[in-house]
């Protein structure tokens, strides 16, 4: 490889000459410290390079060495439970070797070179194999069986396959290709981050990604393999929602990308996830999670790469047949990193200084999500759901990152700072948000939860919409001017908001609600509404209905643990019925007296 020389350094951008055989997006090593960089523009003899580390101390004349390879990640056992920076350097190993601060030029293998994994083959010698075929497995954590696949591009006859304990670099199988070419397979493979991993076929989404968050599952559900975005001004709870989804979504694997956000938030995930139990298996959540952390004060170019690193790892697990969910917090920081590099390249800016290719980059990213038929045998379906937070400046949703994202994603959870100010969390605005999956998922809810689910959902949405209209009137003429039936609607809508949609991420019970419990909670509110309507028809005063003490029990139903819920639910339902019967009996008596 030719060695080039630096001619210019401007922040994270370095220009070098003499890199004669460099290709676009090749990784290069910059300076004596061999900092990692990537070629992003070629112009005559000059190559512009974005450097993934601080460039202080570099100057004209320093060497630049090409590697001939694009920016790639290592894929294999050891990913789960790890925390990486934007270019997949393991932060734990870096701390052990270099201390609390991240020095420049540090290098560590993404996957441990010494850990031995027990490999159990499922294919046998003489089998014909091709790309994507599963040839064996490693029990990576108690939650994850890491399937070992034939890397894309390789096919032939399995000449040898070994069982036993191996490091990621030892050969576990040998494939003899068509022209007699010999491929040594290892537990690990490499893949360039900017290229989507192949699959056989894309499928429409039809299964729910259960999140345990009531407003999400009930009103704005996301399908497995779906895409969603969470835009909102600061303080509206984007990160808490992302964390909640990472904790409770019923995906097999979670990849969480902290892109240009707070260091303490990543620490929070690191400390909390090993303590939290997966509601399905009771195992620590960390045993299904991979973390990518490129905090706001870490080098900006690596922030640009972090999103690709994350989604490539997610695709790799998808290829094993798993349902994977990726959270990127925040894609705005990723776009800003692109803008910064583009500015240094002195490219012609598009809207608000963002590069003109912003839209296509965002599209490429979300297009890597989806439900697919994986390559190889045995035939398997898998999904990759992508959920991106967006941080619009000043909370203004008309800005380019939000707008470009909304064109692509099918679920929009719009966060509202006014809700956050009154501590209504999650602060997802129910009038502004939408999910294009609700109809696709209707059959799923009908079969899995109950036939009335979709009906209840529509009823709830309608009441919330009516509430917004009635609020307008109340603001003009006061609440006493409303008809009793409108007042009842207003009260029920309030109950939907406060007792159902509002959910505390910090309460041990309330933090996760199963679909069954959601369904039953909805039924309680609905029961109250129906009986209230009937009571009004019988001439009962609205105030009597509003002041029924049973409403407090409906409000607190969310705090009843799942294990006790069925029994207590029946009690509450009975109490609602009795309360109304009493009210009506009393009124009936009074009515009867008046008649006599």
């Amino acid at each position, binding site marked *: 490889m030719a060695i080039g020389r630096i001619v210019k350094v*401007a922040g994270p951008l370095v220009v070098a000459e003499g890199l004669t055989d460099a290709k676009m997006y090749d990784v290069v090593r910059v300076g004596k410290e061999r900092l990692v960089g990537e070629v992003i523009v070629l112009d005559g003899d000059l190559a512009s390079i974005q450097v993934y580390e601080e460039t202080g101390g570099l100057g004209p004349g320093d060497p630049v060495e090409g590697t001939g390879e694009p920016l790639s990640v290592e894929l294999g056992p050891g990913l789960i439970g790890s925390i990486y920076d934007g270019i997949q350097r393991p932060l734990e190993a870096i701390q052990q070797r270099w201390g*609390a601060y991240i020095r420049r030029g540090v290098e560590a293998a993404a996957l441990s070179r010494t850990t031995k994994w027990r490999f159990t083959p499922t294919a046998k010698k003489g089998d014909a194999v091709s790309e994507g075929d599963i040839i064996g497995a490693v029990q990576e954590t108690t939650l994850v069986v890491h399937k070992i696949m034939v890397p894309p591009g390789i096919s032939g006859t399995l000449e040898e396959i070994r069982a036993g304990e191996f490091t990621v670099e030892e050969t576990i199988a040998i494939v003899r290709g068509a022209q007699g070419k010999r491929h040594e397979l290892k537990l690990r493979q490499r893949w360039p981050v900017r290229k989507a991993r192949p699959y056989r076929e894309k499928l429409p989404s039809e299964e729910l990604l259960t999140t345990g968050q009531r407003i999400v599952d009930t009103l704005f559900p996301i399908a497995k393999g779906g895409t969603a975005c969470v835009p909102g001004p600061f303080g509206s709870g984007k990160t808490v929602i992302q964390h909640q989804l990472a904790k409770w979504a019923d995906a097999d694997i979670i990849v969480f990308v902290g892109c240009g956000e707070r260091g303490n938030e990543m620490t929070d995930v690191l400390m909390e996830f090993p303590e939290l139990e997966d509601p399905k298996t009771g195992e620590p959540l960390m045993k299904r999670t991979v973390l990518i952390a490129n905090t706001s004060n870490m080098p900006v170019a690596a922030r640009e790469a972090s999103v690709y690193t994350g989604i490539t790892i997610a695709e790799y697990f998808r290829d094993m047949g798993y349902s994977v969910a990726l959270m990127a917090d925040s894609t705005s920081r990723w776009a800003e990193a692109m803008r910064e590099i583009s500015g240094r390249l002195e490219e012609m800016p598009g809207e608000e200084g963002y590069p003109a290719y912003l839209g296509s980059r965002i599209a490429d990213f979300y297009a890597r999500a989806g439900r697919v038929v994986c390559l190889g045998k045995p035939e398997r379906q898998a999904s990759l759901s992508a959920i991106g937070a967006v941080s619009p400046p000043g909370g203004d949703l008309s800005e380019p990152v939000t707008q470009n994202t909304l064109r692509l994603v099918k679920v929009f959870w719009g966060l509202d700072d006014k809700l956050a100010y009154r*501590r209504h969390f999650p602060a997802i605005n129910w009038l502004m948000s939408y999910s294009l999956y609700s109809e696709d998922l209707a059959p799923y809810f009908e079969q899995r939860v109950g036939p009335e689910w979709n009906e209840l959902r529509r009823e709830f949405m309608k009441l919330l919409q009516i509430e917004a209209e009635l609020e307008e009137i109340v603001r003009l003429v006061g609440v006493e001017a409303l008809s009793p039936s409108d007042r009842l609607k207003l009260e029920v809508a309030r109950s939907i908001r406060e007792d159902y949609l509002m959910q505390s991420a910090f309460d041990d019970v309330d933090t996760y609600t199963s679909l069954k419990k959601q369904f039953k909670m909805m039924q309680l509110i609905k029961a109250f509404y129906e009986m209230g309507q009937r009571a009004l028809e019988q001439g009962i005063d609205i105030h009597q209905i509003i002041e029924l003490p049973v409403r407090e029990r409906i409000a607190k139903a969310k705090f009843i643990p799942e294990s006790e819920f069925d029994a207590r639910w029946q009690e509450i339902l009975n109490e609602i019925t009795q309360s109304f019967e009493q009210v009506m009996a009393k009124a009936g008596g009074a009515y009867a007296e008046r008649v006599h």
Partner: protein
Amino acid sequence: MQREYTSIAEIAGPIMIVEGVSGAKYDELVEIELAGGEIRRGRVLEVDRDKAVIQLFEAAQGLNLRQSRVRFLGKVMELGVSEDLLGRVFDGAGRPIDGGPPIIPEKKLPISGEPLNPYSRDYPNEFIQTGISGIDGLNTLVLGQKLPIFSGAGLPHNQIAAQIARQAKVLGEAEEFSVVFGAMGITFEEANFFITDLRKTGALERAVMFINLADDPVIERITTPRLVLTCAEYLAFERDMHVLVILTDMTNYAEALREVSAARKEVPGRRGYPGYMYTDLSTIYERAGRIKGKKGSITQMPILTMPQDDKTHPIPDLTGYITEGQLFLSRELHRKGIYPPFDVLPCLSRLKDKGIGPGKTREDHAGVLNQLYAAYARGVDVREMAAILGEAALSKIDRVYMRFADEFERRFIQQGEYEDRTIMETLTIGWELLSMLPRGELKRVRDEFIEKYLPKSVRE
């Protein structure tokens, strides 16, 4: 190897271009010797073949093209640190201005710092009692947090910062906070207020001050917060102290940043601020926190004045995206004579949930604060409605909420500048206020806590 050049080609504002340079490195420290022997400093912003673009740290006044000499020092800017820094006052570039002797450094640290490995961070979860109900009760500050005050011109943010500096303590620890104070472009009166206040309470001995006044060179303001944080990191992580960093006013810092960017003719982002301002601000704010295995901590309280009280302005906006919450001050409450005039609803401490509860404050804290917030929010809504419709149009319960909002501002938020409330006192006031509401309205608090803490007289 020291390289000296007299080939300055251009000086424009804070930017200087030197030509015919060989071996200049990006980010390297530069010394400029004036004709009279005076030394100014700067750093390399860009090197392009034999041309170096230099950002001056000090004023350009008196520099000329022919007689000034430029030396490339081959190192980055450093701060000499030792425990002798405590009790001293420096200017914005780190020179003593209190008449004391120069510091004999124990070691020198680069002022730009290195990013802290997220894996090495220890999560901030220890309660700091500031003695101010609006903070302790509602927006609890924890050790290692960065919590800015979003203020406006003419609001008492300095008094609040000084009160926090005076009263902040970690419960159960005898040791008080060390304060590292950074002033960027504030007036002499403001700076003097802090110095006098710290001296009066004897806190100056455990404080270090870096002061760039309004009439000091603008460009020094870019260095000042980095000196402050380098000093704080030394005290916290090498001398095991709990450090409270106060930076005021970050708006002036951002303006200095814009000036450099404009001088370099960079493509401007929103309102002329550079596109990398988010990243730049984060290299300041992210230097707060705790490190696993270290006793000390850095808690940051930056103060910024929002131009025209506009929170969507890029400076508060980008700050809010980096810091762990924010305390807003309200002009309306200030006019009503309420101190501290916290604009309660948009205030937020993101880390509060980890710093409160049993063993830290009290088991009922989370419920109480959520209930107070919800009730106050409704009260404020009702108050607005009453302004349109008149009080007569309100329902009975709405009137209760309106009264609650008034009482909440008067009794909970309002307190004396020298009043140091314990967290128990704060919670007691909270429960007294909640007792104004019908019990059925207390949906955010668990029944067991209502039984235990709601004042008895009301319960029957």
